[in-house]
């Protein structure tokens, strides 16, 4: 198809050369559709779709496990609506079923979600020009999966309306998480116990853990965190988990320094 491509490229180059208008109005690129909030938003939704395949089953499992842990249907949906953080929600179920105090649950959620500060730091330069209501909205919607897609938008050009794209990724994820939680709450109780569905939970965490093991320090973090959590299992309220996580980070920092 080379002969057909050359004229198109040439005419585009010529269009650029011919252009001598005022600064601030770049030449129109006929191949790119005009940027509109709607277009950016829908692009964000579209690019998020493949990851929803991975999110929806977790939402279903969450709804089902929440009821099993003794949470009311309203409470299960409330966790998805207000906390809106999959892994932290799963961990809280563990604590709720052991009757941990609220402060322990909140602190554990904080530790598990601390990684979101990384995403916040990464997107921060791109949201500084936005009004506060946008920052609040995009922060509420900032999850692992939405960040994974949204960050790719910011390496492409024409960022004037990129916040609409980020909104699209966040809204797509949000809607599917809420809907799948609801379906899990409504139908999850019908899943027989012999299916050992609760075993999906450690497997889910394992599936999230494996891609984070990218170098020696991150292995050190996982192994030392896991070992300490095991050793301190007898501590009340999963405190061994929180301590293990903190020591794991410290060990990784030391391992990184050694290199």
């Amino acid at each position: 198809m080379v002969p057909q491509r050359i004229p198109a490229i040439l005419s585009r180059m010529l269009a650029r050369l011919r252009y001598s208008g005022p600064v601030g109005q770049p030449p129109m690129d006929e191949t790119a559709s005009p940027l509109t909030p709607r277009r950016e938003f829908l692009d964000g939704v579209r690019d998020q779709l493949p990851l929803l395949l991975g999110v929806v089953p977790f939402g279903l499992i969450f709804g089902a496990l929440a009821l099993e842990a003794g949470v009311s249907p309203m409470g299960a949906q409330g966790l998805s609506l207000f906390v809106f953080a999959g892994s932290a929600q799963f961990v809280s179920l563990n604590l709720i079923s052991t009757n941990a105090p609220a402060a322990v649950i909140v602190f554990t959620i904080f530790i598990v979600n601390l990684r979101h500060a990384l995403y916040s730091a990464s997107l921060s330069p791109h949201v500084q020009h936005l009004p506060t209501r946008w920052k609040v909205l995009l922060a509420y919607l900032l999850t692992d999966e939405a960040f994974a897609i949204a960050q790719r938008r910011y390496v492409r050009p024409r960022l004037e309306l990129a916040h609409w794209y980020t909104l699209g990724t966040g809204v797509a994820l949000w809607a599917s998480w809420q809907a799948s939680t609801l379906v899990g709450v409504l139908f999850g109780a019908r899943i027989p116990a012999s299916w050992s569905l609760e075993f999906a939970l450690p497997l889910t965490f394992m599936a999230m853990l494996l891609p984070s093991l990218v170098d020696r320090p991150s292995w050190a973090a996982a192994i030392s965190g896991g070992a300490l959590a095991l050793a301190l299992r007898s501590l009340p309220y999963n405190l061994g988990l929180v301590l293990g996580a903190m020591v794991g980070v410290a060990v990784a920092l030391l391992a990184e320094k050694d290199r």
Partner: protein
Amino acid sequence: MSPGTFWLAVAGGMLVTFATRVSFFALPHLDRLPPLFRRGLRFVPPAVLGALVASMLAGPIAEVGLVGAWPRLAAAGLAAVAGWRTKNAWVTIGLGLTALWLLQALAG
């Protein structure tokens, strides 16, 4: 757990989660925190998830003993190897669950 405690935990969980997400949006100067802090953030996911996986797999051992828990441990081991090879979340979870069902059927 009483509804009061539960909803208190939900409200607190919402606040701390939102705080981590809005942190650098609201306070871009956080960048000037000691670099140790930024470097440490990177290791939060493996440390937290490693601790989680270990304590969750230890649960059945404490309940039913090493012998009773072997189908779970073997299934988890298989899932870890397959997940590491493929880097695919669905392989990890799907294979782990399937292996557990087969092993439990074997163990009777």
